[in-house]
């Protein structure tokens, strides 16, 4: 029986080791939310600390496990009539050693950690561009006050510049996290936070709310578009324009519906340049069609996706305020017809 | 409560420390109850001065009244300890007298608290617009808002309830839970008083029953000593001392 067990143990350890190795080599850093693929000073500093403590941890783990494995093998009971071993009660030298050595090791890793903590928390350029981010169930509002830009779920920033972020929430606690740019900081009502980051590479970086915030927490995502200063300036200029007026009958019909009291979209959404759409409950839509993604970054901004959203928002993002509060969704008598939805979509898709 | 009254008539076994089980239990419970009140007091302090609207402590507190009720509670502690001393001496009559005094004093304290809560909830503001004297910040705010030309006084109900502001919330829940402790104590002592009429119910040999109630009662008293200083007297400061 013991041999069976030992063989079983051996195989299982081989299996386990195989899995661990597969994991380590299989874990790539080109996934969209991997913080290892750091592109800015904040995430780089955090990744460095992670590497330091990981390697220290692996070394400690290997030593401890080697000791454990050696002892279990060496001191296994060899025969049934083996006598009692020496009753050793302790050894002060050993015990002092494994108190002092870990303490020194911890001090050694504490220094760079605290250093990195201050670097990553305190902005090096307090006067740099400020972006105000407001959390809502379940989308992000972005304001750049000094440029007058307001947008939702898709933030553009210039490459190579420090960005200061101010975080706030309108309802529950959310958390702002773009793994490749910086670790997360919570967005708490009545308790504003700040953070900073900088991207040294152009590209589109994924972000996600990291604090559980209710039913559709999993669907609260966003994108950060990092572009050259020139592209950024162009983007700002385009965002500052008023919304395009509808140019074809279908989008005109959608526009009228949007502004009508039957649909009531205008009450919650802003479309600058329109007569009455200045609601702030839902995301800003002035340049909706200029965004790559829709619905807090969970899907591409396409006609089909927009249709499915407008048809049954609760299916796409369960529990959202629009399907709860808008009469066209909570009152069966006022449901939008398919042509109406098509017209609305056409109008929204025209808002470049 | 249930913890504290557990197995009243534990027979006096020989114990490791030579101390009685129930008395150790009581002290562990009191140590634990310290954390209970610490959390409430911490909540009160953390929110001190953070209320967005009045009334603030100085608008509603009446230090003389609370001083009297504090005095009543301190006296109840004295009568409690005298009841215990009387029992140890074997004077059942003295015991009954003093423990009844404690019950009465404790109930008086609760009466004061009820009165205070009622007064706060129905707080009345009167501002003489022509000749305003000694306005608190809160009253000044009301003055600025309401005393326009031709108005010679302003009267209104500005009650403080647990819903009014952070001060109301933290104040009522802290003092209310203290009041709950006092109520439990009064019921406990009342039970002992009644039990003392049963033959053999309260005897010098079984002084521990009273000792435990007394420890609880004094603890409630010391908590009030802290509340009186921290909640009422620190009330002079509207906010943080910074």
């Amino acid at each position: 029986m013991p041999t069976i067990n030992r063989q079983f143990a051996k195989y299982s350890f081989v299996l386990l080791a195989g899995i661990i190795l597969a994991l380590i080599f299989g874990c790539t850093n080109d996934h969209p939310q991997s913080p290892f693929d750091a592109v800015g000073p904040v995430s780089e500093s955090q990744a460095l600390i992670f590497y330091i403590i990981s390697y220290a941890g692996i070394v400690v783990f290997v030593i401890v496990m080697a000791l454990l494995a050696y002892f279990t093998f060496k001191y296994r009971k060899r025969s049934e009539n083996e006598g009692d071993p020496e009753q050793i009660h302790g050894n002060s030298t050993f015990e002092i050693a494994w108190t002092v050595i870990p303490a020194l090791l911890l001090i050694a890793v504490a220094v760079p950690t605290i250093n990195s903590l201050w670097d990553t928390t305190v902005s090096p350029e307090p006067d740099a561009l400020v972006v105000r981010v407001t959390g809502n169930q379940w989308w992000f509002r972005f304001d750049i006050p000094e440029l007058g830009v307001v947008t939702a779920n898709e933030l553009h920033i210039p490459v190579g510049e420090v960005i200061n972020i101010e975080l706030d929430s309108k309802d529950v606690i959310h958390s702002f996290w773009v793994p490749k740019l910086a670790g997360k900081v919570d967005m708490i009502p009545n308790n504003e936070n700040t953070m900073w980051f900088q991207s040294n590479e152009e590209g589109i970086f994924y972000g996600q709310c990291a604090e559980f915030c209710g039913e559709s927490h999993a669907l609260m995502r966003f994108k950060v578009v990092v572009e050259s200063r020139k592209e950024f300036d162009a983007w700002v200029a385009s965002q500052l324009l008023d919304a395009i007026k509808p140019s074809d009958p279908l989008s005109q019909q959608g526009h009228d519906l949007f502004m009508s009291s039957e649909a009531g979209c205008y009450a919650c959404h802003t479309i600058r340049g329109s007569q009455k759409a200045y609601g702030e409950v839902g995301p800003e839509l002035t340049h909706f069609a200029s965004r790559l993604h829709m619905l807090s970054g969970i899907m591409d901004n396409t006609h089909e996706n927009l249709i499915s959203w407008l048809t049954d928002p609760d299916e796409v993002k369960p529990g959202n305020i629009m399907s709860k509060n808008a009469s066209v969704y909570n009152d069966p008598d006022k449901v939008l017809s398919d042509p109406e939805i098509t017209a609305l979509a056409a109008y929204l898709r025209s808002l470049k | 409560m249930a913890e504290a009254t557990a197995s009243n008539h534990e027979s006096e076994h020989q114990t490791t420390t030579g101390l009685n089980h129930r008395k150790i239990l009581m002290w562990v419970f009191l140590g634990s109850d310290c954390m209970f009140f610490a959390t409430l007091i911490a909540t009160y302090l953390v929110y001190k001065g953070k209320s967005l609207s009045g009334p603030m402590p100085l608008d509603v507190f009446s230090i003389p009244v609370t001083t009297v009720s504090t005095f009543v509670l301190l006296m109840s502690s004295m009568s409690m300890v005298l009841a215990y001393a009387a029992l140890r001496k074997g004077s059942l009559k003295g015991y009954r007298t003093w423990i009844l005094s404690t019950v009465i004093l404790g109930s008086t304290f609760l009466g004061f608290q009820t009165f205070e809560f009622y007064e706060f909830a129905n707080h009345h503001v009167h501002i003489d617009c022509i000749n305003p004297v000694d306005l608190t910040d809160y009253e000044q705010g009301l003055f600025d808002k309401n005393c326009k030309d031709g108005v010679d006084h302003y009267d209104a109900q500005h009650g403080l309830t647990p819903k009014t502001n952070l001060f109301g919330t933290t104040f009522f829940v802290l003092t209310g839970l203290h009041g709950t402790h006092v109520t439990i104590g009064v019921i406990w002592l009342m039970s002992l008083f009644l039990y003392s009429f049963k033959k053999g119910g309260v005897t010098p040999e079984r002084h521990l029953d009273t000792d435990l109630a007394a420890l609880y009662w004094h603890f409630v008293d010391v908590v009030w000593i802290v509340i009186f200083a921290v909640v009422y007297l620190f009330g002079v400061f509207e906010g943080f001392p910074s």
Partner: protein
Amino acid sequence: MTTLLIPMIKRPLHPTGIWNWITTIDHKKIGLLYGATAFINFLIGGIEAILIRAQLSGSNADIITPEVYNQLFTMHGTTMIFLAIMPLSAAFFNYLIPLQIGARDVAFPRLNAFSYWVFLAGTIILHSSWLFGSAPNSGWFSYAPLTSVAYNPGHGMDFWIVGLQVLGIASLAASFNFIVTIINMRAPGMTLMRMPLFTWMTFITAILLVLAFPVITVALIELMFDRSFGTNFFFAPAGADPVLWQHLFWVFGHPEVYILILPAMGIVSEILPTFSKKPLFGYSTVILAGAIIAFMGWLVWSHHMFTVGLGPIPNSVFTITTMAIAIPTGIKIFNWIFTMWKGSITFSTPMLYAIGFIVTFTIGGISGVMHAMSSSDAQQQDTYFVVAHFHYVLFGGAMMGIFGGLYYWFPKFSGRMFSEKLGKVQFFLLFIGQNITFFPMHFVGMDGMPRRIYTYSGEMGWTALNALETSGSILVVISVLLFLHNIVKSWRSGEEAPGDPWDARTLEWSISSPPPEYNFEVIPEVHTVDEWWARKRGLLGEQSPSVGSNEKGEIHLPQPSFWPLVSAIGIFIGGYGLIYSYPVAIVGLVIMMVGVYSWSFEPVNDPD
């Protein structure tokens, strides 16, 4: 009035069958009740976990709705922590503490029964939220303001609040009891520094508990008042700071983590010496390390809040205090390993669990230090890396220790031996299964997967590892079923167990298995740590214990009582009253008062 009631309800002096269990105040029976109830809860929590894993097994899976998913992870956490691990530890406390310190029962036997029944009440209240259609859904730490009526209508959170309050009463009552028992019921000669390690860890756990639970009690009262009476504790528009809830929760929550793990550490500290045939290496160091861990548990709570924006100064302070906890934890691990040094090790199932515990707990400990690094923690907080960490500590640590303890003391509980072969297979299945389940979580976490999401899209690259985790969880399920099979079968028809099947070291092994109702015929006199080992080996020399006269006739055991149960029923009814209707709560209060009064005036033993 109540004095009139007592003669009307006859004391259950010689009950049999079911009434025997309902009115029992025997610590051993209560321990078994605790164990059985808690293990059922463990299975319920396991079912919840499996549903979670099923939903996450692939990207964009659509097995359960987001709302149910949120209820599942909330209830999974709450169940495993408050209804499974804590009461499983309590089962060991109940059964073993009097046996280990040489006592006939706990200090307050009726209070002990009360604890159990109140725990059962809390269990039913929490689980019944599923039946009432509104399980709590804000996570086990339920951050305000997501818990306010505005964002969380319905009764789910009310069930959570009331359930936790009721469980708090049970835990507090039990802990008061064990503190007094350990201080005051030790056999002659058993000084503090001769107590078995498990008793020591129980003592420290109980002290932590009585100091930590009042904090959550107040926090829950505040939350309840916010929800029910419109107070402003966590209401941001009135100027409140929702971060206060987080502070209060974690002031309780971090000591709670040690409340969960310290008993398991105690169990492992009993198993390792027994199967190495050596005393625990550095007995007093291990105790001291446990005490330091418990004390430091109060200095580190904000490490759960590194991303809350407390500022660099608090974060630096809590980084350092948290890292410092690694030192006493490391001391324990090295002392355990060196207990085996130069020993004579037998690899019975409990020993495999103890060794497995060291392996997985070390992983959890190291990932804990990784979390202490507040800088890089910003990338780990609220991701699956955290989920991996605390499952290594709570499953790989606490549950592994508890499984080891269940095997180790099974002969004592049941008087039967379990099947070693099944036990070993079960151990390896569990060990491998849990590593396959939880180890990849480190990687998906560091690949940016937040916790508490019910779905994720395929482009994230998390699908393969999640599928692997789910397959690992199936191994865990199989192994738990195997464990149940082994236990049930062995209890019915296992080989009869001798008093001391493992050649163990502490006093509980000096009596028969299962122990007689009165535990010790003669209260033993203690001369040393590992008293039973010293007696067996004749190490006490001249002082060798006298067999003593048979005092059996003089043993007075406390008699059973109805009143703890009645008081608990009052709390149970009162609990539902607080959720649904205050008049009912008053009825519950009255019933409880009747119970408490009758209990107070009922003598421990009716005069003969």
